[in-house]
């Protein structure tokens, strides 16, 4: 037996021995992510309503309030207050009318939303800093945590190169895929909500967080606005819920012996 053969056998034995000693266990874990906000002073939450704008295909104010209420009911320990959803845009318009000394603005039948973009929104957002207004609402519901904010749901269209997996059948009759880049027109929706959390006992703002998500589809694909809205909200909800309650991230780790 040559020296080389002895060394080879030795290394195989060493490898087998070490493999034999190697013991590991895969374990399912749930890592807790602490809530961003301490909500222990509150037992109840009021999803008041939102400054909504963008596309008029859906009513983002009502839809968002309804969705957040149902999520909070099942995924947080706070009791959700059932109340009419506030029309904050109208509230701001009413104040503007009163402030200028003229008669309150009269609703004109129009398909155009009052808030079309972020610039329009800026004018309305001052309402979140109105401590007296929120304190008054808080008093009405015995000082809950108030969730409000803005939701901009807009139509978007983009053109550019996109990658697609194109199937083809090779010499042996097996279907394979090749990446193809081609120019494409896409359309879809963008959702940009800002969630504002207010202490209903004092009217003071506790925390706010903004999100932005887009969903683009082929321009020949007819995706309803509402289904796109829910698709986008689905992506944002974990972030929203993590503001109020500890979330658990599921995964696996390897324990070693």
């Amino acid at each position, binding site marked *: 037996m040559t020296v080389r053969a002895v060394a080879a056998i030795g290394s195989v034995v060493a490898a087998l021995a070490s493999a034999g000693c190697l013991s*590991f*266990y895969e*374990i399912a*874990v*749930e*890592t*807790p*992510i*602490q809530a*961003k906000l301490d909500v222990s002073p509150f037992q109840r939450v009021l999803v008041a309503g939102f400054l909504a704008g963008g596309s008029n295909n859906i009513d983002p104010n009502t839809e968002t309030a309804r969705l957040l209420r149902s999520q909070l009911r099942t995924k947080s320990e706070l009791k959700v207050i059932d109340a009419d959803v506030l029309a904050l845009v109208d509230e701001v318009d009413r104040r503007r009318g009163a402030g200028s000394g003229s008669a309150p603005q009269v609703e004109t039948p129009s398909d155009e939303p009052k808030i079309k973009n972020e610039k329009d929104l800026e004018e309305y957002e001052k309402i979140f800093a109105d401590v007296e207004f929120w304190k008054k609402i808080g008093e009405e519901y015995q000082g809950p945590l108030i969730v409000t904010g803005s939701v901009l749901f807009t139509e978007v269209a983009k053109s550019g190169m996109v990658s697609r997996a194109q199937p083809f059948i090779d010499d042996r009759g097996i279907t394979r895929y090749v990446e193809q880049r081609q120019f494409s027109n896409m359309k879809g929706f963008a959702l940009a909500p800002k969630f504002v959390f207010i202490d209903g006992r004092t009217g003071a703002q506790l925390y706010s967080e903004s999100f932005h998500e887009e969903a683009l589809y082929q321009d020949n694909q007819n995706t309803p606005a509402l289904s796109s809205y829910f698709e986008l909200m689905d992506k944002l909800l974990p972030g929203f819920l993590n503001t109020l309650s500890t979330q658990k*991230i599921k*995964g696996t*780790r*390897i*324990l*070693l*012996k």
Partner: protein
Amino acid sequence: MKTKLWLVAALVALMSAPALADRRSDAKAQVDFGIRVAQKSLWKEAVYRFEKAIEIDKTYGGAWNNLGIAYEQLGRFDEARKAYETAMELEPNNTFIRNNYDLFREIYDRQGRRRNR
């Protein structure tokens, strides 16, 4: 003289080898128990066992790795990071430890960004 010194050194090494082996086997017993309780999601008890194992044998990379996982499950992220990093120092080529650490860092960094906001 040189031969004598070598002889003494060899004797010391031979005598301490069983002691080291004993330490590792005692530590392994703690780790075994820690793994069993971790599999039942009793993470506080698991932490206790893995800490005990490290107390017995500080060079036990597997125990540090397991302690990192257990701390992570209890939301003790800073301690988890230190434990994982010690495990990696002790066993730099262990891909299991590296993978655990990478997965943990994703969560840890996200929490850190939030703390700094």
